[in-house]
């Protein structure tokens, strides 16, 4: 920052001054500092947020895609197993409940499961996964179609072609054979003119039995596929054919009608055998049960394929889930460490930046602080350098200007003070000049001594004594409120009024009249609200009577040799000037020989020592009593008081009168 040129404080152009310093520059600096620290914090937060979002994305993958995908794969697999089991139940038992359960498995588990997998893999980046899913959907459609055909054919006659062959082709031939044999027997029973012998009848009967036995074996072969039944069928066919040949050789013994039937039997029997063998062949084929064959060749392999595919997809998803979980865990740890590093860095950077900026801001403030202290101590004599153009620069400028003004004012004040001190000293000298001289000895038995020490600020004390006539002497001490020349002037005026006895219509022998006259002469409203206290006494040396009154003043102390306790001579009257037309009372006491009266101002006892203890009247009285044996008692008391307060100076005027009565 450029340093402004040193200004001329003697002739400041305030408009130019306002232009030189930018208003709001300090606030801008503080805001820049705050924004810098905040920006560092925001950067750290953004980095943390980025890490957090990355973690969230991975966790979402885990929660929303991988795990549900595994779940959907398993559900679909279970659905396929359920559908297959139900289909097997339907094929084996024909219970419609199995078919319903089969449909329920498809519509409740498999199709929703695959739809869910498709939805979850929508947008899957893995091309192989998508291909496998598409392939799986096609295979699933194949499986659905295959199971539809299995279910459709399972409970129809066409499911077992051997039985169809028997029903459609074997059975009609067999019925024809049986019908022909029945006709022959019927004709024999009707006594047809044939030469049939019992042996012929036996051969016919035997053929009939062998045909029945062959048919029973055929049934067993078709129903159960037993090889033994097939052999049994073939044996019976062979025997039947043999019997048929036997019958053919005896055909001439049968009647023509019987022979025609017998010829029909001989023609039909080979077709019976032909179609029966077709049926056996169909039963022996691996497609003897169409539904089971479809299941074995289509449904089960498709189910296995799909199951394996879903299994592998689920396993892969589980593996990916574990991998993602590891990544998330690792990333979480890294993010934590990164966060900690960033936080530490943020604290360090914030500290460095803040410290540097704060130093830039507080340096002028510190200088101002030191300068202010020096200014207060009066040792600052040079201007502070102005290093910024902001409010601090402005403040420094103003401070320099203030310093110059203060130093000027101080000089003026010092001159004024010195002048006033001289005036106060003059006033104190004047006050001291109007004080009466001490009375060393008097033939009227009175000796008066006093001590007066004016305070630095000149209090309002004054005192005096003068003979009113040959017998009476007036003694007084007054103390104007406040300090300085004003109170001193009032004190002198009151003092002069008493000394020159100018109070109108006043008997100065009567203390209360004097106080009432003073109250009228010096009302506080006409004297800058100043009032004064006074102790006023008149002593008749012939009668040894002392009459006295006090207005707002503390009592005087009378020490008499005849009385061990000091006597307090005071009255409870108003201060002079405080209350218009106030009435005052006075009192009188006789004074024994050797007695001493002490009249003093409050500056003699309203003083505190270093422990803030007040001396008070009792303390002063004690000092007075202790000083009695001394030659110079007033000096002794003064020194005792000085020792007590541990100082030679007094905060108020110190006035003390000692009137000794011989």
């Amino acid at each position, binding site marked *: 920052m450029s340093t402004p040129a040193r200004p001329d404080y003697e002739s400041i152009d305030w408009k130019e001054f306002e232009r030189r310093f930018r208003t709001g520059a300090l606030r801008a600096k503080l805001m820049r500092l705050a924004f810098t620290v905040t920006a560092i914090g925001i950067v750290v937060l953004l980095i943390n947020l980025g890490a957090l979002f990355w973690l969230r994305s991975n966790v979402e993958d885990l929660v929303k895609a991988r795990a549900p995908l595994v779940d959907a794969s398993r559900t679909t697999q279970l659905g396929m197993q359920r559908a297959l089991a139900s289909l097997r139940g339907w094929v084996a038992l024909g219970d419609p409940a199995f078919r319903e359960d089969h449909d329920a498995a498809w519509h409740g588990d498999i199709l929703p499961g695959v739809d869910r997998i498709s939805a979850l893999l929508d947008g899957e980046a893995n091309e192989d996964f998508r291909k496998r899913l*598409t392939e799986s*959907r*096609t295979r699933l*459609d*194949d499986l*659905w*179609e295959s199971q*539809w*055909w299995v279910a*459709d*054919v399972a409970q*129809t*006659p*066409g*499911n077992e*072609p051997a039985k*169809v062959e028997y029903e*459609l*082709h074997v059975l*009609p*031939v067999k019925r024809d054979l049986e019908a022909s044999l029945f006709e022959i027997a019927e004709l024999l029973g009707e006594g047809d003119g044939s030469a049939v012998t019992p042996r012929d009848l036996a051969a016919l009967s035997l053929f009939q039995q062998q045909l029945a036995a062959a048919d029973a074996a055929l049934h067993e072969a078709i129903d159960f596929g037993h090889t033994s039944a097939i052999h049994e069928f073939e044996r019976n066919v062979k025997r039947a054919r043999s019997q048929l040949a036997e019958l053919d050789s005896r055909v001439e013994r049968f009647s023509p009608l019987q022979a025609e039937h017998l010829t029909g039997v*001989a*023609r*039909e029997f*080979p*077709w019976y055998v*032909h*179609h029966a063998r077709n049926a056996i062949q169909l039963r022996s084929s691996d497609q003897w049960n*169409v539904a089971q064959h479809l299941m074995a060749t289509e449904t089960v392999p498709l189910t296995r394929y799909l199951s394996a595919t879903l299994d592998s997809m689920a396993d892969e998803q589980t593996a990916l889930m574990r991998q993602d979980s590891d990544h998330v865990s690792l990333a979480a740890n890294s993010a934590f460490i990164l966060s900690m590093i960033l936080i530490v860095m943020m604290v360090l950077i914030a500290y460095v930046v803040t410290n540097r900026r704060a130093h830039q801001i507080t340096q002028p403030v510190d200088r101002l602080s030191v300068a202010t202290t020096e200014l207060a101590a009066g040792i600052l004599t040079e201007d502070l350098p102005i290093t910024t153009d902001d409010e601090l620069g402005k403040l420094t400028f103003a401070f320099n200007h203030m310093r110059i003004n203060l130093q000027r004012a101080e000089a003026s004040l010092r001159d004024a003070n010195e002048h006033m001190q001289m005036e106060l000293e003059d006033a104190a000298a004047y006050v001291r000049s109007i004080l009466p001289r001490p009375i060393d000895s008097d033939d009227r038995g009175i000796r008066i001594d006093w001590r007066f020490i004016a305070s630095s600020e000149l209090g309002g004390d004054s005192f005096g004594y003068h003979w009113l006539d040959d017998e009476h002497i007036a003694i007084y001490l007054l103390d104007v409120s406040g300090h300085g020349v004003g109170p001193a002037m009032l004190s002198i005026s009151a003092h002069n009024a008493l000394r020159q006895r100018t109070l109108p219509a006043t008997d100065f022998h009567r203390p209360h009249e004097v106080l009432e006259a003073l109250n009228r002469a010096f009302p506080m409203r006409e004297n800058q609200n100043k009032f004064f206290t006074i102790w006023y006494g008149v002593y008749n040396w012939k009668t040894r009577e002392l009459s006295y009154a006090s207005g707002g003043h503390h009592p005087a102390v009378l020490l008499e040799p005849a009385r061990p306790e000091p006597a307090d001579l005071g009255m409870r009257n108003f201060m002079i000037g405080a209350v218009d037309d106030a009435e005052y009372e006075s009192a009188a006491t006789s004074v024994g020989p050797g007695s001493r009266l002490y009249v003093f101002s409050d500056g003699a006892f309203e003083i505190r020592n270093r422990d803030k203890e007040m001396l008070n009247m009792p303390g002063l009285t004690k000092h007075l009593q202790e000083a009695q044996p001394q030659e110079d008692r007033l000096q002794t008391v003064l020194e005792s008081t000085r020792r007590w307060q541990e100082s030679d100076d007094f905060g108020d005027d110190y006035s003390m009168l000692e009137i000794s009565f011989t």
Partner: protein
Amino acid sequence: MRNRQPASMLLLFAVLAIASRVEGSQSANITPTDVYGHVQAVALDLDRIRLYMGRPRITQKEIQVRGVAPREVIYQAATLCEKVNRLSYELIRVVGDKPAVPDRDIAPADVLKFIHLAHEQVTEIAKTLQLELNPRLMTDSETKTPTDVYRAVVQLNRQINLMLDQRFSPSDVYEQVSLAIAHTATLRSRWSGRRIPPEPDWELGKRPADVYRLLLECLELVRSIAEQSDLQILELSVDNADINNVTPSDVYDIASLLVSELAYLDRLLNDIPSKRRARYPGRKVPSDVFQRVGILKEQLEEINALLESQSPVEEEGR
């Protein structure tokens, strides 16, 4: 056992001679006219058996179709083989071979093989029944189209049905419709999702005519699907009055036609066409068949809607 009569042997040799001629070097040159001649020969021989059995002659008008292709004829020829086999079993207990429709473009020669097999079986029946047949090949001066052959085979199928004790029933139609569902499911597999929808509610009192109408609706849907795939199928025109008189055999024929069209689309549009076989479903009534055709119709509607609204899975890079 079969009696080997000289006349029958002569007839058999004649048929075999014709067959060997066809299967020889000429198979590539077989025309619909040739096939038509053989169909007429079968019709003549069959008529001889009909007379023997005392069964009525077919009186229905020929079916009104246009734009028939050999692939559509061959399924009617396969139906002819089925019916002749059933007649053969009922009369002489012999069941002939049941050929499979070739999985490739069908030529008139392929149709002729089926006609031959049917003719062999008819000849066998006549021989067993000791009926005199006239071993001649019918020739016509007019050039015939596959449509003519188709009409003739359908008429032949109708005639055989009248001669059967166990006529073609709703159960047979049910089988054909199941086969159609299998082909449609394969077509539907080009898109993901359920290939066979749930069956509609069973409705009481349905007649063959109801099933026939529903199958015609399915045929229209197949035509729409084919056209969206730039393919053509035959145009069938059936008088509403005729529909009211249809028999299960007629329903079977239209179901067979539907199967032929769907198998064709299946083969052309899919890498692996359906290999499923229809199984004997047991006794079925027209209401059962109607319900099953309902499944087929919904499948076709779905495919139609998918073709109109979204790209097949193949186009998505499947």
